[in-house]
């Protein structure tokens, strides 16, 4: 779990069976979110037909995982990319810009989403395979970093 330590997070790694994912479906993501100690709050399909899963971290952070580059039948698409996103409403563009300049986290992208919202995201690439536990750690790192940012707003 050492890759997580650079981000100042702790991650207790239980021994679990390893298997690779070269794409993901809703069931895979729901399982990974649960393993990452988040609570799945919903799932569905966006207007473009891509799946999403919404969740809440143990710390109360609400976030979504949205599919990118998805193929397959409607309602059962599998995706090669996953966009993890959460946003915080600060109220003004000036405040968002001020905060964004103060925040420096390599593992996430921090953007001004407009309308006074600060957007925090991380994009995962599944092409050719990542281990399920690697996905879980990516989710944990994202929620850990996002919660840290939340605490600084």
């Amino acid at each position, binding site marked *: *779990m*050492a*890759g*997580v*330590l*650079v981000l100042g997070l702790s991650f207790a*790694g239980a021994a679990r069976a*390893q298997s*690779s994912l070269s794409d993901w479906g809703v069931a895979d993501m729901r399982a990974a979110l649960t393993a990452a100690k988040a609570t799945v709050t919903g799932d569905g399909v966006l207007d473009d037909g891509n799946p999403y899963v919404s969740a809440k971290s143990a710390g109360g952070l609400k976030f979504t995982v949205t599919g*990118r*580059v998805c193929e397959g039948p409607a309602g059962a698409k599998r995706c*090669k*990319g996953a*966009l993890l996103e959460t946003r915080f409403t600060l109220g003004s563009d000036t405040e968002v*810009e001020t905060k*964004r*300049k103060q925040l*420096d*986290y*390599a*593992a*996430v*992208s*921090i*953007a*001004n989403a407009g309308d006074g919202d600060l957007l925090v*995201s*991380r*994009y995962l*690439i*599944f*092409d*050719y*395979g*990542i*281990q399920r*536990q*690697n996905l*879980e*750690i*990516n989710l944990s*790192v994202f929620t850990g970093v996002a919660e840290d940012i939340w605490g600084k707003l």
Partner: protein
Amino acid sequence: MLKSFATMSALALALTVPAPALAQSDGLLTDWAPSDMKTAIVAAGATVTKEGALDSAAPYVSGVTANGLKFAIYGTVCSGTPKRCKGANMSASFTLDSDAAVDARVKEIDRSAVSVRNGGDKSLDVSRYIIFDNGITRANLTTNIEVFIEVAEDIWNGGGVE
């Protein structure tokens, strides 16, 4: 300007990606050393220009793309002798005309695969962080490098805006 590489995920970034066959019979990487990263950089179509160690003793490998983009990959969370690292931070920097120009670009760039920030001294910094814990395939690492290069070159050329 666009180079060829095999990744469907890059399509999400609105990039053109012809897909040559890429060997997938490789093993997992749960950490990396310079030799692993040099192989991946070459597989991504770039040229390795240098390798070394930071003051922290963490390794780095620098490279240049066929289009001239210079970048570096730094090890994080490294241990052992020789060092192997659980994290990799890919980074490229572009010097703009002014700090205000950097801020304007940071505000308008919309590429979720990378982080962009004002690095000071008129520097626009673009980075992507890879986590190796529990394993990614070598081909996945190569795809991550390809995507980073592709997005960084797009930003370099004034793109990156939705």
